[in-house]
C-alpha cells in the first residue's frame, strides 16, 4: 500500500500532465534494438527465400563503425553486421553484408587500415552476410607462395563451413545462387578451423543445425570478441532457416555454448564482447537474457505439444506474449507466427 501512497501520490499530481521527456523517447533509444524500431528497417537474414527479403533500396543506407576492443571493430548498417579485425598482417572480415554496400564498407575499412583484405570469414550462407564476398574479396589479396607470390591478384581467402559452399554453388549444368567469385575458397568440415592473424588466434567454430546447417562463430581470442552471425541477433526472435538445416535445438545449444565462451568483467558487464548478426553490440548479460528468452519460449511450446495442442492452439496460447514487444512482429519476412511455427515443427517433428 506504500506504493499507492508514495508513487500514486506523486503520479496523481504529475501523471495527468505529460512529462516532456518521459513521453518522448530519446532518439538514440528509439532505435536501440527494440522490436518496433527494428521492424521494417532491415531484415535479419533470409530463412527460405534465397536472395529475397532484402531492403528494396540500399542507396541511402548508412554504414557506421564502432570500435569494440583490441583489434576488432563492428560495422553496422543496411545488412548483417560486419566484423573487422585489423593489424600488421592486414584486414580480416567476418561477413560482407549486401553487395550494394561494398563501396561504403570498403571506405570505412580504409579509414581503419590501408592494409589488404586477407581473409573473409562467412558465418552462414544468407546474402545479407555473404553478398559482398565478390566485391570485397576481389579487392583483397591472399599471401601465396611459389610462383604466385605475395600480393598476387588472387583475391582474399574466403573461409566458411563446407555447407556454405554447398549452398552457394550448384552441380555442373545448373545455375548456382551465387557467382563463383563469391564462393568460399577455403572450407572446413571439422569442429573448428584456426587461423593466427594480426597477432591473435582466430577460432572459427562450427555450430551444427542452428540458424542454418553451415553456421560458424568466430572468436578473436586476444581481443576477446566473438562474432556470432545470425545465431544471435538483438532485433528479432531467432531466425530458424529450416529449409537450410536450421533448428531451435541447435540455436539453443549454440547460445549455451556462447555463454560458456563469454566471460564478463566485474559486475557482469563487459569482458568478452559479442557482435550479433544484427543489432547492437552485446556482452554476456545481453546474450544471457536472449538465451533465457528462447529457452523459456521453447519450454512453453514443448509443454503445449505434450498436452496435444495443435499449431493453431499453440499460437492462440500466445507463448511469446511477454517478449513480443521487444522481438515480435506481425509483418516482414520473419513474423512471430513464423517463429512459433518453426519451433512447433521442430519440436513436434511435424513438417
Amino acid at each position, binding site marked *: 500500500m*506504500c*506504493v*499507492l501512497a*508514495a*508513487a*500514486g*501520490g*506523486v*503520479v*496523481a*499530481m*504529475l*501523471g495527468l*500532465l505529460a*512529462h*516532456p*521527456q*518521459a*513521453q*518522448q*523517447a*530519446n*532518439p*538514440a*533509444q528509439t*532505435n*536501440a*534494438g*527494440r*522490436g*518496433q524500431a527494428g521492424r521494417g528497417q532491415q531484415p535479419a537474414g533470409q530463412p527460405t527465400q534465397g536472395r529475397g527479403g532484402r531492403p528494396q533500396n540500399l542507396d541511402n543506407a548508412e554504414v*557506421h563503425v*564502432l570500435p569494440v576492443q583490441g583489434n576488432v571493430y*563492428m560495422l553496422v548498417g543496411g545488412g548483417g553486421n560486419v566484423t573487422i579485425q585489423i593489424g600488421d598482417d592486414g584486414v580480416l572480415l567476418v561477413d560482407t553484408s549486401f553487395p550494394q554496400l561494398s563501396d561504403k564498407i570498403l571506405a570505412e575499412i580504409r579509414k581503419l587500415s590501408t592494409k589488404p583484405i586477407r581473409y573473409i570469414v562467412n558465418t552462414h550462407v544468407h546474402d545479407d552476410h555473404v553478398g559482398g564476398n565478390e566485391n570485397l574479396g576481389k579487392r583483397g589479396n591472399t599471401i601465396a607462395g611459389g610462383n604466385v607470390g605475395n600480393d598476387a591478384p588472387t583475391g582474399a581467402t574466403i573461409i566458411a563451413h563446407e555447407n556454405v559452399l554447398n549452398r552457394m554453388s550448384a552441380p555442373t549444368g545448373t545455375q548456382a545462387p551465387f557467382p563463383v567469385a563469391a564462393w568460399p575458397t577455403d572450407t572446413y568440415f571439422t569442429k573448428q578451423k584456426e587461423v593466427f592473424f594480426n597477432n591473435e588466434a582466430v577460432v572459427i567454430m562450427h555450430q551444427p543445425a542452428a540458424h542454418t546447417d553451415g553456421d560458424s562463430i568466430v572468436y578473436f581470442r586476444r581481443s576477446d570478441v566473438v562474432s556470432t552471425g545470425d545465431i544471435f541477433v538483438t532485433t528479432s526472435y531467432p531466425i530458424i532457416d529450416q529449409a537450410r538445416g536450421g533448428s531451435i535445438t541447435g540455436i539453443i*545449444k549454440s547460445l*549455451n555454448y556462447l*555463454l*560458456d565462451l563469454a566471460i*564478463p568483467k566485474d*559486475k*557482469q*558487464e563487459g569482458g568478452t*564482447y559479442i557482435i550479433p548478426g544484427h543489432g*547492437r*553490440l552485446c*556482452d554476456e*548479460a*545481453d546474450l544471457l*537474457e536472449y*538465451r533465457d528468452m528462447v*529457452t*523459456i519460449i521453447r*519450454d*512453453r511450446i514443448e509443454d503445449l505439444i505434450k498436452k496435444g495442442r495443435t499449431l493453431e492452439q499453440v499460437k492462440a*496460447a500466445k507463448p511469446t*506474449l*511477454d*517478449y*513480443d*514487444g521487444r522481438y515480435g512482429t506481425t509483418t516482414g519476412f520473419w513474423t512471430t507466427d513464423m517463429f512459433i511455427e518453426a519451433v512447433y515443427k521442430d519440436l513436434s517433428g511435424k513438417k
Partner: protein
Amino acid sequence: MRKSVYRTTVACVALMAAMAAPRQASAQGPQARGVDLSGEWAPRFHEDQPERIPGPEIGDYLGLPINAAARLHADSWDASLLTLPEHQCKPHPADYSPRGPANLRLWKEIDTASQNIIAWHTHISWQAPERTIWMDGRPHPPDYAAHTWQGFSTGRWEGDMLTVTTTHFKLGWIRRNGVPRSDAGTLVEHFLRHGNVLTLVSWINDPVYLDEPFVRTTNWELDPHQNIAPYPCQIVVEVDRPQGVVPHHLPGTNNFLNEFPVKYNLPAEAARGGAETMYPEYQLKLQAMQKAAGK
C-alpha cells in the same frame, strides 16, 4: 502531517520540473552549476520499506503501470533463476539501484581550467555500481552501441535541480519479483537537495512493459561519517544443473501468485497491477470490490 506537506512540496517541485524539462541535453555555461550534491548520503527507508529491504512478495504488482506482457514475465519468474552463475553478480540497474540497500556517494568531476563540472558520479553500496552523469553536452551513443546496467546518462541543471536522462539500459527490473523493464526503457531523474536531505524523483518509461511512466521518489540524508564498504561478488555453483536449464514457471503453474492477495486480504485482481492501481482513486474501487466480496 509533516510528511504529507513534504510529499506535496516534492510533488510540486517535480511538477514544475516536468513542465520545464528539456528534450535533450546540451552544454550549459559555468553559471549553471546548481547546488552541490557531493557527499555521503545514507538511505532512508520510510518509503516502501517492505518492498525495498525484506523484498517484494511474489505476485505483488500493485501500483505498477504494467501491461499484460510484463505480468506474464513476472508470473513466469522463478527466484531460482538467480542461482544460475551468469545471474548471480548482476548489479541493480540505475533505475532500481537507489531502491535497494543504497548507501550513496555523489561526487563531481571538474575541468581544471574552466572549473566547469564535466560529470557527476555516483557509487551505491549493493554490488557497488558506479555511474557517470555527463554534464558537458555530449550526445547519447548511437543505437548500435552496447547497453550497460547503469545506462548512459546526461544531466542538466534546472535551477537547483539536476535533471538526468538515461538511455542504453540492459534488460532490468522495476520490482525484485520478476517485473521487468526492457532495454528500450528510458529514465528521467530529478535530484533535489533540501539542506541535508536528498530526494530523487525518477520516471521510468518503457514502451515494451509499461502502459504509463512509472514514477517514484527516494530519499537520503547527508551522513559525513558514512564509509561504504567494498562489495565483491564471487560466482559459485549453487545448484548442479544440466547445461541450459532456465528456471521459470510455465503459464498457469505458479502457485505462489495467490499468496500476496490472500495474506493482505486483497482482491486478486488488485495484485495484478496496471496503471489504474497507481492512482489514489483505485482505493475507492478496492473498497467497492471488498464490499462486494463481503469483506
